[in-house]
Structures are given as C-alpha cells and as structure tokens.
C-alpha cells in the first residue's frame, strides 16, 4: 500500500506511510527511556530522550523518501510566429515589433524569451534565453504553407526544464498541414498554456485564378475548349493571358496585345477559349491574371489584388500521337547505328543530350520509352533521376539503359534512385575478385547558407556512388576533440555506418590542413585498394605545408578540392595548388552554390575510383541464356564484345538474357511497376561492339528490345477528363472499342505519380456503359500524372471471336498553388479554441496590457533532490550523540578554554582558574591511575577485576572520599542485578559532575 506523496514546506515525502514510525516508535522510546534513563539527571535525561526521538524522526524521514523541493521562479515565453505568406508583410513587421515591446514589458532579468517561426517548416530562431529581445528571422524556409502544429510542438520541445513556460502563438490560424488542436492537447498535457494573438486580416481586393479546365486527352487536330475560372472578392479589371506550352495564345486578335482585358464581377467569372493544340505531346496550358485597377469606387485607384501566387493556374492535356522514344546520349557516335535501326523499324525517335532532358514528368510522359546510351548519373539532377524512376514505375514508360565506360556502376548510378528500377545490381557481386577503390573525404567548415545540410547531402551522394567493396573514410575537424576520422577508412558495406558518421559531421573550422591530410594519407597508403583518391571541401583558409602535399605526390594519390565560400578569392590558392600538384581537379563553387552543383561534383569525383568496374579484354561472345523472353525471340547467338560494365545479378523477377565473364549479366530485362526495363552493359557503338554494328541481327535485336520496353499504345479510344473536388480529383474515363461501341467490363490498372515523387494505385470502377470513374488525392500543389493500363475482352463483330483488347492512356492533373494562398481571412475561432483548451489567453495586441510575463496560470516547475541519505547520516550521527550524552561528559568551559589556548587568547581569569582546577584534577587522576594502572583502563568498563578496584571514577574535579565501586563483576551484573551496572555508572558520572562543580 502506498500513500500519495506529502509535502511539508520545502520537503516532500514519496513514501509518507513510513512516517507512522515516528509516533509509534516515539511513544515506545519515550516509555522505555523514562525507565531506563531514570538514573540520569533531568537535563541529561531529556536531552537523551530528545536525541532518541530525533534519531527516530530522521530514520523514519529517511525511509519516507524525502525530497528537497526547489520551485522555479523564472518564466520562459516562447513566441511561435507565423511567417507564412498568408500574413501580409506589414502585419509580419507588426508582430516583430509587438514581440520586442511586449518582451521588454514586465520581464524579470532571469526570464527567458525564445522564438520559433512557422511556415511550411518550423524553425527555432532562438532558444529561450535571458538576453533575447525579439524575433530575429534568419532562415524561415518555404513560406507557401503553414504547419502550426509543428511550431507548437517545437516550442514545447525547446521549453527549459527549470522555468515555467508560456507559448504565445501569433498567427492567422490558417493551417495547411498538421493539426493545431492536437498539438494544443500535447501542450495541455505538459501544463503549458498557449496564449494566442490572432493576426486579423482580410484580403478584400483579391482575385484568384481558381482553375483552368481542359480535357485530359485529346486527339491531334481536335479543337478543345479551355475554360478559365476566376474568383474576385469585388469587381475588378485585369488582363488575362493564356499560354500553351509556354507560347502565348492570342486571345484578342483585334488588338496588338496577346492577352485580353477582362472585367470581373464579384464572385466566380468564367472565360472560355477555343484552342487547337499544335504538337502531338502533352501540352501545358497556363492562365495568368494581372490586375490593372479596380473600378469599385470604394477601392478607387488601388490595384485590386494583393497575393500574386494565386493569380495563375495550369492544366495539362495529352495530345494523342504515335508512340515515340527519347534517346539520350552525349556523343552522336554513341547511338548512330541504333538510331538508324530505329528509323528503319519506324519507331519515332527524338535524340537529345542530358542537358535537354525534360524536367517534368508530364513532358517525359510524351514518350513511350527512354533510351540512355552511355550516360553517367551526374548528367542528371537527383530530381530527374527520381522522375525517370517514377516514369517507369508509375506511368508505365519503358527504359533501355545501354552501357559504355560512363554507364551503370562506372557512371555513378550506384545508389541513384534509378538503380532500383534496373534488372541488375550495379554493385559488383561479392564473390568477384576485382580491384577496389579507396576514397577519403576531408571536410572543413562550410560557411555558406545551409552549408552543413549541403555538405552532408554531398557526402551522402558521394558515398552512395561507391560500390560496397570500395573503401571510404571521412576526416574532419570535430571542434572540441580536434582532427580525427569520423569514419575510419573501411569498406562501404551496407552504408549504414558511414551514413551515421555523415550525420554526425560538425564541419569544424580547422586552422591547418596538415593534421587532417596526414591522417588521410596514412590511411590511404595503408589501404588495400587499387585506385586511391581524396576529396577536400573547404573555404580554403587553413594552412598547408608543402611537405604534406609531397606525401600525396609521392604516393601517387590524387586530391580534388572543392572551394566553397572563401573569405577572399586568394584563399583558394592552397586548394588549387594541392589539386594541381597531385593531379586532381579543383572546383570553385563560389559563395552560394546550388546543391545539385556540389553534389554532382562529388559524384563525379567519386567516379575517379570507380573505373575498376569496367571489364575490357579479348573479344568474346556473350552467352545467350534466355531465348524465350520476348526481346530475345529468334536470337540464338550474338557477336563478340570487347568490354562491358561489371554488375551483379538481381534476385527476383529479373531475367538475364546474356552473360559475360564469370557469368556477369550483360543483358537483362524485367518489369518494374507498370513499366519495362532493359539493360545492356556493353555499348551500342563500335567502341566495344564493333562486330555488332555490322551484324545482321543488329536491327532485330534492338527493335525487339525497344518495342518490348515501349508503353503499349492500344487501339481503344479512351478519353479522360478530370475535375477538382476539394483536396481530391475525380477521374472520369469514357472508353470506346475500335468499332466505336462502348467498352464495358474493362479492367483498369491505374497508378498516379504524385508531385512528391511517390506513386500510388488508383481504384477505377465502372459507373455506367463505357464510363469508368476513380479518385485521387491531390491536396499538394504540383503535377499529378495518371497512367491507365486497361484490358478488356471484346467480340470481333465479323468473326464473333473473343479477343483481348489491351492498351494504356495517360492524363495529368495540375494543382498550381498551395492552399496557403486560398485563405483570404483569418481563422480566429480555431485560435480561441486552442487558448481555451490549454488555459491560455487571447491577447489584445497591446504589448503592455498583454503582460507576457504574467505568472498567473503558469505551473512553476519544481526541482527535487533526494535527501534521504543526508537524513540517514544525520540519524546515525545523532545516534552516536545519544550514546555520547549518556557516556561522555561534555564540559563547555573546558572546550572553550582548549579552543582559547589553541588560538593563544581567551585566557581570562575565570578560564585560567578553571584551567588550573582542571589541571589539578587531571594530575590527581593521573597519579591515581598510575598507582593502579590496571584500574585506569577499566574506569568505565564492567570487568571482573573492577569489583576490587579502589580507584575513583571521576573524570575531573577532586577525587571523592568515599569511592563507590564503579562497576560490579560481570557475573553479578548478568546474574543478579542487571540495572546495577547502569546505576553504578550513573552514580559515577554524577559524582564526577559534582566534583566538577566544586
């Protein structure tokens, strides 16, 4: 059984039931003591009883788990400030001024102010501190969203433990993500009130381009109706422009301008334009409204629009065309032969280099397959790589990856998003004996905006590009603990260890490169690797000895240097020199480099050690191992090749079609998501495949492979229309079979590629004859690309035979602007609810009256410190005193005199006399003690001999004339008179005291 804790003054007891010992034992001790201590003098007796009771109190107290409670007196106010775009800039300034003034008002010196800004992400601008006086907006992130819940959670997370905390939320209450109420519940749970300061605004002069409506699919040459819906808060005049694929459409042929002047009434306004798409590809239509001046007399002269983000809308229409493929290569010779056979096979091919590669999935989706010929990964941005993966997985596009010395593992594709889509693993097989590379990264402080993030991503990218057998090490200056390996030079393995190390990088500002370079060179020299390389990233100001550079030169190890944000251009000379002298590369990425730029440098640099993945040697013919798969149909043997990129077989559904040395997969195919992927690790040019180009089966081989990978076109007529409904989009499909009849009982396998790079399946069901519907969640801004693969049994009207009709269709949905720009007034009700829930206040906005530092309603935290051990020690100490009181005479005057002597003063007459008398007594006692040494040792002991002792028992004073035996023989004590021993002692003590008094 336990009781709730009890607090007495500053002391709290966790197990107060033990306190019951105090009265119980107290009474017992008191009763016992009255009897057993009756022999003592009054004062001594009561002291002894008091001491015993106190001992019991201390022991009982110690058992009751006592805590010393210190209540905090300081308050932390954490201001959570909405920095999103929905708050007009003037109001943002007002918030800052309010915080500065309100935080100065009534603040005690040790009170602390912390600030958190909220937009799409929440960021701590300053931790709660004594000297902070306002909100200092440093980096607030993207402002096209508001996640108030995250802001409140962050504020709670930064609340100091030793102060009471109040969160002050300054916002319009419009959240686009998260749930503020849920965060408020968390605040309630930890007893933190949330005061709210509603930011009031109303965008009265506002025009929103609500949406632009176009059909999702259209045939080439067909005219379509583009409808633009504008929403005006009050009558307005403006210019509406419409563009198709970036080219403006002349809306008003009568005027020299391309746009048209429109007069808007209050509420929704719809404008409709007839357009005939010009090219067979996905066409993006964009409508833009520019306000001119309001005609409303109330807002005369003012431009009737405040937020420009909501003035544009986009939609995408797929303009039907014959299936085409996109060929990407850097060098025309790379695909010369391949393009020729594609043309002979009547496959429409567009050839570009990586720099021209589409940046949106909708554009890429115009092609049924993409062929990458000897393309390295660093030619594509991370987003493009991810988009390509999505293109295959979610929109069913085909991918043909053709090798060359810059492709596959040797081209840095290891670890790229696209690596998941390939039917082979780019890492070489474990069993394969091959030279491996060793890479050391030396990281120095990156004093650029978001430099730490950038540098970490860069390291990650470099490490991702290495194969599992390669060695990687990271050296940095870890601030307080100096230069060291953050990650020792060791095989990459599954990358978890090195990723952990990267996450812990601190990017300390090292004064000199020597220590870190020496560490790196020692590691690299000892490393069991073929190619060795080092990359250093720095602002260039640490010093470097020539002798250190010479070590790299002597060991033949290249060093590449990335100079980032130098204090002055001349700082980079050290880096330039080290790169030049060791044969590495030097990159000056300037003051504020783009992430992609630095990442691709690191990936490219990591390639330096990746050349080992290329096999080149005497020509041999790869073994055709799988003739049954469609792309290899009819191909029983292939000509010799002179080289290929080594990769490993992927377990699962991939099929290896050709094998090279040690069974390396040279050709492989598989289905990835909705799309199909082909890899051929040798090249399509004469570098490695000279014999192929002149081979009779060359056309058949590539035509079959490319056609197999291409997305099926289909013969049915499928028209897709979309409609926004809140955060969802309704997909409507009207399907006709080749004979023009409604297509029923079709099975749709649909996926949507979301703007965040994820894909999700879409459920499509039949809603009527030839009509199918589905829904997708489309709450985030951006493009959603939908792919529909269908299968349907149809009856041939002539023969009456059942055949299977297969095909696919695409559609795109565009959500142009975030909900952040849809809110045109504040949400005060939500804020009020939050304040009520957490016991906070609704602030007036008056910095003085609001009194942010008010203590009312705050729970002051209490720090507790366990003190049972102190009580227990006190109890033990006092127990000794208790014993002492009864056994040892304390002579205050004697002590005073002794202290006086020790300090050479205090020899007053009284004390001198007293000392004299003490000395006399001592002398006599000593004399007697010497006379009977045996007795002297037993003055206070009950011993057998004591009975015959004749000596006195005085401790001091004059010897008594009629000395009583101090003790009785033990036997007698035990046998006859147990109390007598005690009484004898007491008597002796009394005697001694009397002597003293004399």
């Amino acid at each position, binding site marked *: 059984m336990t009781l709730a804790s009890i607090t007495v003054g500053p002391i709290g007891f966790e197990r107060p039931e033990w306190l019951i010992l105090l009265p119980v034992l107290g009474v017992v001790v008191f009763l016992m003591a009255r009897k057993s201590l009756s022999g003592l003098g009054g004062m001594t007796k009561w002291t002894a009883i008091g001491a015993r009771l106190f001992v019991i109190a201390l022991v009982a107290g110690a058992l009751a788990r006592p805590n010393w409670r210190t209540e905090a007196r300081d308050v932390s106010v954490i201001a959570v400030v909405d920095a999103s775009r929905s708050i007009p800039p003037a109001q943002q300034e007002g918030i800052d001024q309010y915080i500065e003034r309100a935080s100065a008002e009534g603040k005690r010196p040790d009170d602390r102010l912390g600030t958190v800004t909220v937009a799409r992400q929440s960021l701590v601008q300053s931790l709660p501190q004594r*000297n*902070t006086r306002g909100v*200092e907006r440093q980096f607030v992130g993207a402002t096209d969203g508001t996640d108030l819940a995250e802001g409140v959670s962050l504020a709670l997370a930064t609340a100091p433990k030793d102060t009471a905390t109040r969160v002050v939320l300054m916002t319009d209450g419009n959240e686009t993500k998260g749930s503020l109420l849920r965060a408020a519940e968390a605040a309630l749970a930890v007893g933190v009130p949330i005061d709210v300061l509603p930011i009031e605004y109303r965008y009265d002069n506002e025009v929103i381009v609500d949406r632009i409506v176009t059909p999702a699919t259209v045939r080439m040459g067909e005219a379509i109706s583009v409808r633009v819906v504008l929403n005006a808060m009050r009558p307005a005049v403006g210019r509406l422009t419409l563009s198709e694929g970036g080219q403006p459409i002349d809306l008003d042929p009568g005027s020299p301008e391309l746009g048209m002047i429109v007069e808007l009434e209050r509420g929704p306004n719809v404008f409709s334009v007839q357009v005939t798409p010009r090219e067979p590809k996905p066409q993006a239509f964009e409508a833009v409204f520019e306000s001119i001046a309001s005609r409303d007399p109330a807002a005369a002269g003012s431009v009737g629009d405040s937020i420009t983000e909501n003035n544009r809308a986009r939609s995408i229409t797929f303009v039907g065309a014959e299936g085409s493929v996109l060929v990407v290569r850097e060098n025309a010779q790379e695909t010369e032969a391949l393009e020729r056979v594609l043309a002979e096979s009547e496959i429409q091919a567009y050839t570009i280099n990586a720099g021209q590669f589409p940046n949106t999935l909708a554009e890429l989706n115009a092609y049924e397959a993409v062929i990458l010929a000897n393309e390295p990964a660093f030619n594509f941005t991370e987003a493009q790589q991810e988009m390509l993966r999505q293109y295959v997985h979610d929109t069913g596009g085909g991918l043909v990856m053709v090798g060359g010395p810059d492709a596959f593992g040797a081209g840095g594709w290891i670890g790229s998003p696209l690596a998941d889509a390939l039917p082979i693993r780019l890492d070489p097989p474990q069993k394969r004996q091959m030279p491996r590379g060793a890479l050391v990264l030396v990281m120095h402080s990156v004093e650029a905006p978001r430099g730490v993030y950038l540098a970490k991503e860069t390291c990650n990218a470099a490490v991702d590009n290495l194969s599992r057998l390669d060695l990687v090490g990271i050296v940095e200056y870890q601030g307080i*603990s100096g230069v060291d390996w953050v990650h020792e030079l060791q095989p990459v393995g599954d990358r978890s260890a090195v990723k952990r190390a990267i996450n812990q990088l601190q990017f300390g500002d090292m004064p000199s490169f020597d220590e870190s370079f020496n560490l790196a060179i020692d590691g690299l020299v000892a490393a069991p690797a073929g190619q060795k390389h080092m990359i250093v990233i720095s602002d260039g100001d640490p*010093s470097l000895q020539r002798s250190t550079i010479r070590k790299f030169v002597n060991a033949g190890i290249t060093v590449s240097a990335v100079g980032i944000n130098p204090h002055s251009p*001349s700082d980079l*000379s050290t880096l330039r020199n080290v790169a030049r002298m060791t044969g590495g590369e030097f990159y000056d990425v300037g003051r504020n480099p783009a992430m992609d730029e630095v990442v691709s440098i690191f990936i490219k640099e990591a390639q330096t050690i990746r050349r080992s993945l290329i096999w080149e040697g005497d020509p041999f013919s790869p073994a055709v191992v799988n003739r049954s798969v469609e792309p290899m149909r009819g191909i029983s043997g292939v000509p010799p090749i002179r080289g290929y990129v080594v990769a490993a077989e992927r377990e699962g559904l991939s099929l290896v079609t050709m094998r090279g040395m040690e069974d390396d997969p040279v050709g492989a195919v598989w289905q990835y998501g909705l799309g199909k992927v082909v890899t051929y690790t040798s090249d399509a040019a004469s570098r490695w495949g000279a014999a192929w180009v002149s081979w009779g089966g060359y056309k058949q081989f590539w035509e079959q492979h490319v056609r197999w990978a291409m997305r099926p076109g289909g013969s049915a007529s499928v028209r897709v229309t979309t409609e926004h409904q809140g955060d969802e989009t309704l997909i409507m499909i009207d399907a006709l079979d080749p004979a023009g009849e409604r297509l029923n009982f079709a099975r749709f396998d649909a996926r949507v590629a979301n703007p965040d790079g994820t894909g999700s399946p879409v459920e499509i069901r039949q809603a009527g004859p030839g009509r199918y519907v589905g829904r997708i969640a489309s709450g985030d801004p951006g493009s959603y690309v939908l792919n529909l693969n269908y299968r349907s049994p149809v009856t041939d009207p002539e023969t009456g035979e059942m055949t299977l009709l297969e095909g696919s269709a695409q559609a795109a949905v565009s959500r142009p602007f975030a909900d952040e720009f849809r809110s045109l007034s504040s949400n005060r009700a939500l804020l009020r609810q939050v304040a009520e829930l957490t016991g906070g206040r609704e602030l007036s906005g008056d910095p003085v009256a609001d009194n942010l530092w008010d203590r009312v309603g705050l729970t002051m935290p209490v720090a507790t410190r366990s003190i049972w051990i102190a009580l227990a020690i006190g109890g033990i100490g006092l127990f000794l005193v208790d014993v002492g009181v009864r056994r040892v005479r304390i002579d205050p005057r004697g002590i005073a005199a002794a202290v006086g002597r020790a300090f050479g003063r205090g020899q007053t007459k009284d004390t001198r006399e007293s000392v004299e008398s003490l000395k006399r007594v001592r002398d006599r006692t000593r004399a007697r003690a010497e006379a009977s040494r045996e007795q002297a040792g037993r003055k206070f002991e009950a011993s057998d001999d004591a009975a015959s002792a004749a000596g006195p028992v005085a401790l001091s004073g004059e010897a008594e004339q009629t000395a009583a035996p101090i003790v009785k023989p033990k036997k007698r004590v035990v046998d006859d008179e147990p109390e007598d021993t005690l009484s004898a002692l007491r008597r002796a003590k009394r005697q001694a005291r009397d002597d003293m008094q004399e």
Partner: protein
Amino acid sequence: MLPPMPASRPWHNTSRRATQRGLGALAALAAGLTLGGCSDADPATISTEAEVSFGEVGRYPGQFSYPRAIDAIATPDGPELFVCDKTARVQRMLTDGTPIGVVQMPEWELGKPTGLTIAAHPTKPGERALWVADTHYHQVLVYDLPEGEPFGDEQVNPEPTTPVLAFGSYGHEPGQFVYPTDVAVLTDAAGAIERVYVSEYGGNDRVSVFTPVEREGATAFEFDFSFGSPGTVEDAPTPEAVVFNRPQSIAIDRETNELIVADSCNHRLGRFTLDGELIAWVGGLGEAPGSFTYPYGLALLGGGQALVCEFGACRVQQIDLATGESLGSFGGMGLGENTLAKPWGVALAGGMAWVLDSGRNRVVGFDAPGVPRSAGVGP
C-alpha cells in the same frame, strides 16, 4: 600607469550561483579545517576553478555568436571586457555580462575580425582606444571606446560605427595585409605611441611594424619594417629561421622590452626584440605542460610570464617565457564549469584572467596572479 585596483570585488556575479555554491563552500571550508587550516591558493599560479562566467548564444546585446577576440581593461568600478564575435561587433561589457557599449564593423560579408586590443589612443593623448584587426577586410581600425546607451532600436544589427582611423589594404607588399590577426601598441613613458605591430596570416604570415606620422594635419601610420615569413617548423631551413604559420596573437612586454608572438599553427611562442630579432622560440606541438596545441590567445602577466590560450588543447597555460616552463593551467577540453571548448582568446584585468570559451559562447573569469600588464590593460 594602471588605475588603482578596488580593494574588494563588488562586480563579481553574486546572484543565484553564489547562493547555490554556498553549501558547497561550507563543506569545502569544513574539509579545509579538518585537513588542518585554510589552504590559501598559491598566489603565484592561476586558479584551476572558474570564479565567474557569463554569456549565451544569440545576436542581441549581451549575447555572443562565436566570440573570437577579447581584451579587458581595469577601471575604478571594476574590469570591463571587450568581446568581438561573428556578428562583427565589439561589445563593451561589465563582468556580469551587461553590455555597456558596442562598435559595429563597417562591413562583415567576407568575414569578421579576429583580433582586438585596447591601447593608447592615436589622436587623443591620455585616452584609450579600441584597435581592431579587421581580418577579412585587410585593415586595422581604431575606434573611440564605445560609451552610453548604444543599443537603440537596431538591437541586432546596429549601425556601423565610424572609426577614428584606419590603415591597411589587401596585398603582399610591405605595409599591406592579407589577414591581419592582432595589434600591439608600443608607447613611450609619456604614453605616446611609438610603434604599432600588426600580425597577419594567409600567405603573408609576418609581423609588420608601423610608426605614427603627421600627414596633412592628421595622424597616419607609415610602414617601418616587418619580420617573419610564411613557413612551418618542419619546412624551416634552420631552427632559428623566423617563419610563422598563422601568428594569431602578439603582445609587448615592457618589462623586458620583448614582443611575444603566438605562432599558432606552428604551436609555439616566439620571443623577439622590439626590432624583430628572434630571442627564442618557446614550446612546440603537444598536450604536455609547456607544449602547445594551436596557441591562439596571449596575455602577459608580468615577471616574464604569459597566459597562453590554446584553441586546440582547450586550456590556458601560465608559461614562464624564459624557461618555457608551464607553471599552471586552467581548463581542459570539456563542457563543465571549469573546462573550455575551443577558446580563442584571453585577457587580464582586475586580478583575474578572462578567457573566451568560444565554443560555448561565454566568457570565463578565474583568478590570475600578478598585475596585468600590456596585453591586458593597454598602456
């Protein structure tokens, strides 16, 4: 001359921390008594325990954003500290952290100052001035000591303060600077400036000496001579070669008429005559007493002793410059009250040493022996 020292130290932070320490102090007293009398700290060496500390991270007055340079002066009301951090401002502060003045550098985009010295005023005889080595703008700036209520509405970024005087430009020629790190001012008995020494790094690692001249009715500083060249201990042709690798701090010892240079990346101190002739190198790389790991800060104690603040070893050593012997040490790497995280500088005033615990954005004060001299309190 130094102003008189106050008898007591009324400026010490006696707030809550003191009361919290009360019990501990009692216990220590009791322990001291039992062990046989009060153990007076040896007055010849620095204390190993912090007496006071203040500072927190931030950009508001009283806060620091990685402070990298410090100097201190003694006034009749107690010591005052001057601290420069990465907000490119020098805050004048009391020893409880209260800011009482600020100087904001004119520009800071390229980098922030890493050295400052309070020394004789170049134009106002008898007064003191703030000399700033504006490292990344390749110049030396001289300011009046900031006074009054300087933190108006522009709390975070005050308006740039106009310097009294500035000299230096980028370059490798004599009289030019790459990255100046510290300034030391040599005055005569009357307090008039005789010479100004400026240390620098960045490919120009040397000490340049300037003399004041009257030019068109205004004081200017003219290049006189320089000594030292960039180099490392390992690469130096002879041990006596005067090569520097980032001389981060310099100080003048008027007792011995020596210029002491903290040759940071060579992990040693250099003792020079005022004319730049090498007397001796002191120390070398290491963590043992008497060795240094990136000695960044320097303050002279008098009696041929110096306090050396080591960025790498996170400590302050008391060094006998003649023998190179370490007489005591404060700190050590750590996040405790008596340990330091990458300290950049040390200054002396009011019988105490004030070390910049840069990694933790605070200033730590601890007892230091002797009377602070040139580096600590200027002329």
